[in-house]
């Protein structure tokens, strides 16, 4: 179902739940994987994904159709991720590298993370990037998003995003060479 049709059905009380259920089915994987790559842990990603959709539910009536629905949902998911990671650092009074170390350990020990050694090393290298740069990298490299869409979601200029991505790639390659 197209977004426009979903929104029209959501606006009608009798089809509101059905439309929202379809919206969740349509976007759940994109949202979940976007979050999961940032927070690593499945339980955290699961909780945040649900939280994102609750926020979508609460604010969908205010959604302006000038922008695309999925970029709007992505933006909510991105904000949730950054807030979560920020709180995590603050809660445990840990500097950034300690949270990265904790997440890095999960990559080695978690049963729901697979992949060969190179893949795991890549994930650990990603954790060494600042959160926002990691977001940029994930959106470009894994989600293959256009810079213009990323710009709309992150509120950053296309030029800055391009520079950030290329810098992230350089850093990752350096990390991988070092290890």
């Amino acid at each position, binding site marked *: 179902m197209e977004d426009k049709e979903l929104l029209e059905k959501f606006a009608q009380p009798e089809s509101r739940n059905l439309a929202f259920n379809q919206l969740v089915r349509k976007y759940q994987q994109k949202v979940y994987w976007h979050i999961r790559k940032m927070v690593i842990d499945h339980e955290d990603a699961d909780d945040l994904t649900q939280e994102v959709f609750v926020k979508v539910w609460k604010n969908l009536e205010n959604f302006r159709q000038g922008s695309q629905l999925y970029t709007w949902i992505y933006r909510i998911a991105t904000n949730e991720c950054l807030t979560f990671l920020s709180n995590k650092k603050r809660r445990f009074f840990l500097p950034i590298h300690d949270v990265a170390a904790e997440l890095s350990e999960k990559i080695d020990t978690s049963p729901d*993370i697979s992949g060969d050694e*190179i893949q795991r090393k890549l994930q650990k290298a990603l954790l060494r990037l600042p959160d926002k740069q990691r977001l940029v990298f994930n959106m470009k490299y894994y989600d293959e998003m256009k810079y213009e869409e990323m710009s709309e979601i992150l509120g950053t200029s296309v030029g800055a995003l391009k520079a950030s991505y290329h810098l992230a790639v350089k850093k990752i390659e350096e990390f991988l060479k070092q290890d």
Partner: protein
Amino acid sequence: MTKMNKDFKLSDIPKHNVYQVPEGYFDRLPARVMERTAAAEKQQVPWRPGLWRPVRLALAPLLMLLLVFVGVYLTNQPAQPEDQVLNLARVSETEIMDYLSSYAILESSDFAELNNLREQELPAELLNVTPTAAEEELEYYHLNDIDY
């Protein structure tokens, strides 16, 4: 651990999602989200009956006090000038003339209106002043210089 060569590029690594989810996770997720939205909707009720009742009880006497205060305030208001004009309109011209002849003491400033009244026939006893005295008063006050 695998050692990367010096010319290593990110594009050398195949793109692969290393993360996994429990089986059937995405089949169950929509239902779990809907449970949470239903719970969130219940929480959005602005006034819970348990909170609203004591507030209503506290507001009732306050409202009564406010109504009494407004009532007392309005009844103690002095009559408005419009009412006075209306009342005066009901008094006949003869009665007004009789009253002024008997009780009114005209002030010097009242002569300011003499120019307008000149054409009208006014009883001498009402004015209680001679034409000469009136002219002298007019000269004294330089009425043309006074703004009304």
